[in-house]
C-alpha cells in the first residue's frame, strides 16, 4: 500500500497547489502604499496564501505516499449519469439568457431526471415547466428576485 501514489488524489492536491500559486501571484500584485507598510492590505492575503500553500504541499505528500489517510479507494464515477446532469447544466446556461428561465429550467430538469434514471422525458419536461413557472412566480413576483424576462415569463 505505502509509496504507491493514487493518481486522482495527487491530481486534486496539485489543483489545490495551483490555486495557492494563483493566490500568491495575485498577492504579490497588490500595490502597497508605504503608509500601510506595516499592516497593509497584503498581510492577511499572505497568511491565507501561505496556509493554503503549506497545507496543499502536505496533502500532495500524503497522496504520493499511499493516499490521503482515511480515504478509501473510490468507486469509479458513473460517467453516463454525470454526463446527463452536465449536459443539463450546460443547456441551462445556454438557454437562460436567450429563451428565458422557464425553457432553461425545462432542459435542466429533464436532463437531470434522465441522469438519475428517469425514462419518461416528456413527462419530466412538463414537470420541469411547472416547477420552472412556480419557482419563477415565487422568486420573481413574491421575493422580487430578477431572473430575467424570457419568451414565456412576460405572460405571468
Amino acid at each position, binding site marked *: 500500500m505505502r509509496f504507491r501514489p493514487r493518481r486522482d488524489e495527487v491530481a486534486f492536491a496539485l489543483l489545490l497547489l495551483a490555486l495557492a500559486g494563483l493566490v500568491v501571484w495575485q498577492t504579490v500584485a*497588490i500595490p502597497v502604499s508605504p503608509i500601510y507598510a506595516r499592516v497593509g492590505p497584503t498581510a492577511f492575503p499572505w497568511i491565507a496564501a501561505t496556509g493554503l500553500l503549506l497545507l496543499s504541499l502536505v496533502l500532495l505528500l500524503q497522496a504520493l505516499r499511499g493516499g490521503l489517510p482515511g480515504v478509501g479507494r473510490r468507486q469509479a464515477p458513473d460517467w453516463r449519469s*454525470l454526463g446527463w446532469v452536465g449536459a443539463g447544466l450546460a443547456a441551462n446556461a445556454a438557454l437562460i439568457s436567450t429563451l428565458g428561465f422557464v425553457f432553461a429550467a425545462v432542459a435542466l430538469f429533464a436532463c437531470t431526471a434522465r441522469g438519475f434514471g428517469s425514462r419518461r422525458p416528456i413527462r419530466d419536461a412538463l414537470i420541469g415547466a411547472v416547477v420552472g413557472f412556480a419557482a419563477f412566480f415565487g422568486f420573481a413576483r413574491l421575493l422580487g428576485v430578477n431572473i430575467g424576462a424570457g419568451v414565456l415569463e412576460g405572460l405571468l
Partner: protein
Amino acid sequence: METVGLLLSGFATALTPQNLLFAFAGCFLGTAVGVLPGIGPALTVALLLPITFKVPAASAFILFAGVYYGAMYGGATTSILLNTPGESATVITALEGFQMAKRGRAGPALATAAVGSFVAGTIGTAALTFFAPVLVELALRLGPAEYFSLMVIAFVAVSAVLGSSPVRGLAMLFLGLVLGIVGVDLQTGQPRLTFGLIELLDGIEVTIVAVGLFAVAETLHLASRHRYGEDELLPLSGSLWLTREDFARSWKPWLRGTVIGFPLGAIPAGGAELPTFLSYSLERRLSRWPEEFGRGAIEGVAGPEAANNASAAGVLMPMLTLGLPTSVTAAIMLSAFQSYGIQPGPMLFQNQSELVWSMIASLYIGNAMLLVLNLPLIGLWVRVLRIPRPQFYGGILVFATIGAYGVANSVVDLAVMYAVGVFGMLMKRYDFPVAPVVIGMILGPLAEQSFRQAMTISQGDPTAFITRPVSATLLALALALVVAPPVLRALAASRRRA
C-alpha cells in the same frame, strides 16, 4: 428583570399576524429541507437571502430562525425512516432510530425525537434568553485583539476538531479565507485577488458559493455514484404516542441531552455533531438495557435528538452576542445581517434590541409550531420523502439556478457556481469538509478587520496578541485544539505498545 420585559416586547413583535406567518413559513420550509436528504438549512437560508431586500429585518430573521430550527426537527424523520441522515447533526439518530423503525417502532422513535427536540429547544432557547445578556456584558470589554483570537478558536474548532482530518479541514479553511479576500479592500480601496476582472471587484457572492457547494456539488456527487443503488424507505409503523414506558425511558435522556448540547453549541467550538456523539455514548453507558443499543434503544434517539436541538440554540449565542458564527447556517445568517447593514455582536443588543428579542421570542413560538408540524402532520413529511429522486434533483438544480442567476442576471455567475459545484463534488469524493470553506469566507473578512485594528492599536507590533492575557489564553486554547488530539493519540498508542 429587564430581560423578561425585553422578551415580552419581543413577543409583541413576533406575534403580529405577518410575523407569525413568516415563522410558520420558516418552520414549514425548514422541516421540509431537513427531511429531504442532501439539502439543508444553510442552502435554504442562502436561497432566501434575496428576501432581505423586501421585508423588514425582524420578519426575515424570524423566517430564517424557523428554517434553522425546523431543519433540526425534520432531519430526525429522514434518519429514522430512511437511514440516510438528512443533516450531519442527525447521523447518530439513525443508529438507533432506523433500528426501531425496522422493528415496527417508527412511531415512538419519531415521537421521542419530536418531543425531545421540543423540550431541548425550549430549554435551550430559555438558556439563550438569560445567558446572552450576561455574555454581552463580557463581550463589550473585549478589544480587537481578543476578538481576533476568539475567531481563531472558531476557525480551528470548525476545521481541525470536527471532521475526519485536520489537514484537509485547515486546507479548506484557508481556501475559504482566500475567497473572502477577493474584491476591493475596504480600508485602502485596493482590489485584491481580482485578476484584473471588474466582475470580481465586489467580491464573490456568498449565495453563489453556498449554493454551488451544497446544491450543485451534492447533485453531481450523487450522480457520480448513481449506479451504486438507492436507499429503502421504511413505512411509518407503531403508534405516534409514547407509551408510559417509552416516556419513562425518554425524559432523562432529553434533559441530559439538553445539558450536553447547549454549552457545546455555545462555546465557539460549535457544531451539533459532537454533542450528539457524547449524548449517545453517555446514554449507552447509563442505560439499564445496554444490550438493546444497536438494536433500537429509545434512549439512543431521545438523547442525541435533544442534544442537537439544544446545541442549535447554543450556536445562536456566540452568533448574536459576539457576531461569531460556528455553524454554516449561522454564518449565512450573519451575511444576512450584513445585507441589512447590521453587524452582529455585543452592540446588537443595544442598537437592534427589538430585532434580537423578536427573533428570540420567535424561537419559542417556532418550537411550539414545530411540535405540531412534526407529530400530527408527520404523514405529510413521509410523503415528501417519497418524491422520486430523478425529479427531486432536477428541482434542486432549478432552484440553484435562481440562486446564482438572480444575483445579477449573469451567465458568468452561473458558470462560477458550476465550477464551485464541480470542486465541491471532488471535495466530497476525497472527504474534504465543506463547513470551513463557508465559515472562512464569511468570518474571514471580520477576522482581518479585527487583526488590522489590533495591529494599528499596537502600532504594528504583532506581540499584542500574546501579551494581552485574555487574547493569549484564547490563542493558547486554539493551539491546544490543534495539537492536543494527535499528541494524546500518540501517547495512547505508545502506552499500548509498552
